[in-house]
């Protein structure tokens, strides 16, 4: 019983967020009327990082800032902008950090090469094991 009351209290407590008193932007939580456009907007939102809760994409975050960024993305998609143009616009303001799809550039070569390198290292390790077993 006590656990139930505690659970209800936790669920009902308003988190101490530094948010304004204005309602969320219109397009923060409202889908675009055109399903094709909404699909494009959603795909972009899933790869744009929220500026406040920095581990989350704007599609997943409940922060007011993320809502405003979703609204910005939906507004621009509705106006006919391509998703990659909007991504470039955000990168020109916040740097490549804001995008979850890292570009291929010298700083990220290791990142992109990592899967190949790890598989190569794994094969090298496994090769030793197989040879060992055949001998035994």
């Amino acid at each position, binding site marked *: 019983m006590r656990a139930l009351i505690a659970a209800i209290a936790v669920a009902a407590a308003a988190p101490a967020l530094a948010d304004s008193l*204005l309602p969320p932007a219109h397009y923060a939580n409202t889908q675009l009327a055109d399903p094709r456009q909404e699909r494009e907007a959603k795909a972009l939102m899933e790869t744009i990082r929220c500026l406040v809760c920095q581990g989350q994409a704007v599609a997943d975050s409940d922060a007011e800032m993320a809502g*405003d960024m979703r609204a910005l993305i939906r507004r621009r998609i509705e106006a006919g902008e391509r998703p990659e143009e909007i991504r470039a616009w955000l990168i020109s303001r*916040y*740097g490549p950090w804001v995008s979850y799809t890292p570009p291929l550039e010298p700083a990220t070569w290791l990142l992109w090469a990592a899967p190949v390198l790890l598989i190569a290292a794994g094969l090298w390790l496994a090769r030793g094991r197989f040879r060992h077993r055949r001998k035994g």
Partner: protein
Amino acid sequence: MKRIVLWVPLFAFAVFLAVVASGLYAPADRNIESQLIGQPVPEFDLPPALTGRPGLSSAALRGGDPHLINIFASWCLPCRVEAPQLAELSRRGIPVDGIAVRDRAEDLSGFLASYGDPFRSIGADNDRRVQLTLGSAGVPETFVVDGRGVIRHQHIGAITPQDMVAIIAAYEAAR
């Protein structure tokens, strides 16, 4: 050879511990700097947040004088902390232009009545459109824009008394 290999997992664990410990003792800088420093301020035109006081537009930033633009909000607690510093800047003859983020006129009037009102103009950025256009990631932030409308400096977070020298220097350098 085999003896050395036995130590490899322990060594790897020690490296892992060192990485975690260094992250704990010196957390990464989570501030996101605007990429627009050194670039012309993007076009914007904000309506006045309060009647009787002008709003703020990018056109006004190219008039030949430098501008100190404070992005703030009545609902933002650190903005209360920096209010005395903004008042001091205004007293020293540095006009402060404001961008009020997601604010209501009545809340804004109350905030200015309680914490001081150094603002020459206040633009209302109710959907954060201009804040995102400027590459600002939160409140409060302060930009210094030179007389040709080029962004010269960004201060992230509240302006503390220790920050005053740097802010004034950035403003003077933008003349």
